[in-house]
Each structure stands twice: as structure tokens, then as C-alpha cells.
């Protein structure tokens, strides 16, 4: 069996006396769509920052794409893609310039960038928008382009932090089609969302409460385990147990 793309053991992050992430252990396999859920303040962002090599664990360990997140964080960064609603593309650059910029940052070979840009824009139906400034694109287009840019260099894994927040319902669903396509190509997808219907589209889902992973399974099994009709109910049951929510 191939090695998991993400593997953590007792991964922990403390800030002073506050334990933001408390001994989480889990693994994510190649090509899996993994939903990383939790209430605001449960520790999702801190955990994700550690997995992206942006923050050193206090204790425990983790590997992403085979690299140790503490000692090989630069290699981790080169093996991943990242996209969030807040940070995606540069508004004052044209569509092709954004692609060119990010491909360069992710270390893609110069000669591969131009032909792949053409191919991507055609596939997305954006060929006519090549020279459009990103700020002139509708939000839904931006999000689709931003996701495509984050996997342009064919990373082993892509981290998506609330990628569909505020996006209209039709585009939100088209966005998930892109996620499926990426997963079919073998890219592992690690995604956070506040839309509980989207939790259903994940292969497996973890739910964090007060820094710990309180549940992890397929949506179907989670619903069965908690006697719930929907992922929304599962989430509410777990998140209401939180004691540090007030902070």
C-alpha cells in the first residue's frame, strides 16, 4: 500500500498555557477528499498552518507528502498547493500574469508554463479572459481560477480553506466538480467549510472540538454513529460540547 499523503501522531501546538491543537493523530490517503471541520476557534487554522509547514509543532509529529513538517518544512511547501477565500489571486494582475506568477513561485519549469496556461484557460472556458484583470472577474470565476492556480504545478496535496464562502449556489457546486476532477487525477484534497452539505461530498470528515479530533469517518458512518439525519446534526451535537467556545 502506498504511504499516506498526510500522517500525524499526537500533533500538538501550544501558545503559552493555551493548547490550540491537542494531540491529534490521523492520516489522509492519496486522492482522498478529506473534510476538516470544526467550530470557529476549535484549532483548524492552527492545525492547517502546521501541515503547510508554516508553524512548528510544540510536540508530536507529522509528515506531508513524505516530508517531516517540522524539519523539512521547505520541501513540504513545494509539495502542496494552498487556496483560501481570503487569499487567492492578485487583483491588479491579469489572469495570465497570476498564473505565470504562481507557477514561478511554486517552482515550475519555465518552458512548461505557457502551454499549460493555454490548456487550463481552454478547459475552464476562460480563454477570452486571458488579459482580463482579476479584479474584473465575478467572484465565482475568481474562486475557480484560484483553485486551478493552486494545483497548476500538480502538487501531491492541496489545502483549501473555506474555498466556497460567499459564492453563489450554482458556482459553489461547479467548484466541487473541480475538486472531484483534481481528486480523480490523484491530487489529495484537504478542505475546510462551513457548509454542511459540502461535508457530504467528502470521502471522510474529521470534526475538531477544543483542539482535539472528536470524530473521524465517512459522512455515512458519522451519521449512523451519532444517530443523525444530516452532517449538520452531527456537527451540532459535537460542537455544542465545546467548552472553550467562549474564548
Amino acid at each position, binding site marked *: 500500500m502506498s504511504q499516506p499523503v498526510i500522517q500525524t501522531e499526537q500533533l500538538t501546538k501550544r501558545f503559552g498555557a493555551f493548547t490550540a491543537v491537542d494531540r491529534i493523530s490521523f492520516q489522509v490517503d492519496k486522492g482522498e477528499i478529506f473534510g476538516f471541520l*470544526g*467550530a*470557529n*476557534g476549535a484549532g483548524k487554522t492552527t492545525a492547517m498552518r502546521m501541515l503547510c509547514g508554516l508553524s512548528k509543532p510544540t510536540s508530536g509529529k507529522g509528515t506531508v507528502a513524505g516530508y517531516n513538517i517540522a524539519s523539512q518544512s521547505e520541501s513540504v511547501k513545494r509539495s502542496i498547493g494552498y487556496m483560501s*477565500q481570503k487569499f487567492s489571486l492578485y487583483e491588479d494582475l491579469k489572469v495570465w500574469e497570476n498564473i505565470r506568477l504562481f507557477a514561478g513561485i511554486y517552482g515550475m519549469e519555465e518552458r512548461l508554463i505557457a502551454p499549460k496556461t493555454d490548456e487550463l484557460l481552454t478547459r475552464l472556458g476562460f480563454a477570452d479572459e486571458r488579459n482580463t484583470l482579476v479584479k474584473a472577474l*465575478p*467572484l*465565482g470565476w475568481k474562486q475557480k481560477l484560484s483553485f486551478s492556480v493552486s494545483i497548476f504545478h500538480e502538487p501531491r496535496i492541496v489545502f483549501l480553506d*473555506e474555498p466556497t*464562502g*460567499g*459564492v*453563489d*449556489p*450554482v*458556482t459553489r*457546486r461547479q467548484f*466541487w466538480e473541480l475538486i*472531484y476532477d483534481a481528486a480523480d487525477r490523484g491530487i489529495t484534497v484537504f478542505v475546510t467549510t*462551513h457548509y*454542511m*452539505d459540502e*461535508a*457530504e*461530498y467528502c470521502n471522510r470528515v474529521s470534526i475538531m472540538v477544543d483542539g482535539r479530533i472528536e470524530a473521524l469517518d465517512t*459522512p*455515512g458512518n458519522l451519521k449512523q454513529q451519532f444517530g443523525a439525519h*444530516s*452532517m*449538520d446534526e452531527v*456537527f*451540532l451535537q459535537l*460542537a*455544542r460540547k*465545546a467548552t472553550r*467556545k*467562549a*474564548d
Partner: protein
Amino acid sequence: MKAVKVENLYKSYGSVQALNDLSFQVEAGQIYGIIGPDGAGKTSLFRILTTLLLADKGTASVDGFDVVKDYKEIRRRIGYMPGRFSLYQDLSVEENLQFFASVFNTTIRENYHLIKDIYVQIEPFKDRKAGKLSGGMKQKLALCCALIHKPSVLFLDEPTTGVDPVSRKEFWEMLRKLKEQEITMLVSTPYMDEASLCDKIALIQQGRFLQEATPRQIIDQFEETLWAVQSNNMHMLIAHLRSHPQVTSCFAFGEVHHVTVQDTLPMDEMKQYLHNLGHTQIRIESIRPVIEDCYMVLAQKQTS
């Protein structure tokens, strides 16, 4: 008297038409929801109604006062919670609240009953700087600050965006309690599931209302039969359903797909079609639409 009255309102930024001929009215004491994605024009509308932005054309009034002529009177009467956190980050929780009370010439004590239920939740942190609060707490403080002068109309611009489902539910419970105090509320949100908590809603896309009515009326007006379809392979199912010539729409909806078809297609035939394509555990049942179904149908009608 109407709490809010808008007639033929237009606003554009260069070539972008942010608001395109909007007209509506809000009854006093109602919760009125403006529902649509980012970029639909929600914030422009709120900024015009709170007298912070001038419309290109059209008129609007709040509590009977004109947003242009009587802007000072409106500012005294309304509460506004903007989408971006707008409190003073370097002031403590209590200082922020005191500041907003003093600006409106009142005291925390005078209207404490209005904010009590919300404020007690953040009171343990009253000496903490606002900038150091978590998202949910900031939101509660912002609501307290918008309420402290007992506004007659409260404008809440995307108060729950980026907020987890539990905090969203709690926030709406707070709004329901405020309704008992006879405060009119205009709330905007991109979350379609919040529509059912409003007395009346407007679905907005690209500066236009797709529809305006009570949530129930909008759902009742959904013209077709909506089917929830499931099988062992949900991902393939969506492609197969869409490629059927008599399927008119098909959208993923959590654990099922929502599908509409031409009347002439019996569901037995559909089942057989899916079975022939290798699906098992096929389940098809007719269901009542939700607001998100209505939004998608209306949005596509407008675009096409």
C-alpha cells in the same frame, strides 16, 4: 408606516451595475432578509440605506425619513453592523460599548435590557481588547454596540459570514429575541438556509431581486416536482442524470441530488435508466424544495 421604503434604486461603479432598479418595503417589526452571494449588491444597498453612500437614481427612506435629505435624523435612529469588523481594536470590550453609547448620547445602563442576553456572554472578557477577541465574540460585541442606543431599525450586513453552523444558529436566536423588542431588522446573508428564519426575503443576484416574498410563498411558487435521487455512486450519478435528455436540472444537495424532469418521464423509467448504467441502491423520492433550489432556478432563468 413602513420601516424601510425603497423605490427604483440604482447604483453603479464604472461599468458595474451594483443595484439595478430595486424597489421594496419593510414592515415595522419584521426581520427582512436580503439573500444572495458576494457581489450581488447587498453591501451597496445597506450603505445607501444607512446614509453612507449616495444612490445614482431613485429614493429610499428609513422610518419615514429620506436617506439624502434627513440623513442626520436617520443616523440617530438606526443601528448598523457592517460586514467587516468595525469596532476599535485597541479599546477594550467595555470601552467600545461605552464609546458607542456616548456617541449616541446614552449610557450602557439606560438600554442594558436590550443587550443583556448577549452581553453577559462576553462580559467575562470585558477588559480584553476588541482586537484580541475570537470571531464569534467580536460579532456579539458588534451587535451590542449597534444596539446600545435602542435603534428602531437595525441593519446587519452579513453578520454570519465565515461563522460556523453552531454560532450561526446562536446568532439567529439572538435576532429572534430582539424581534420581541419591536426592532425592525434588515439582514443580508449568502447562506440560503437562513432564509426560513426571516419574515420576508428578497433573493438578489447582480443588483436585481429575483423574487421577493415570504420564504413559504417562494417555495410554494416552485413550479416543478423536485426529486431527491441517490445511488451507490453519487459522483457518477450526477453526470448520468445530466446526460438524460428529459432531465431539466440536476444539482448536488448534500447526500442526495435534486433533480427536475420533463413531466413525461415516469420515475420507474428513470430508475431503469440508472440501473442500466450500473447504479445500485437507487432511491428516488419527491421532496419539498428549499430556498436554495428556488434561488438556483430563478438565477438561471435570469441569466439565460
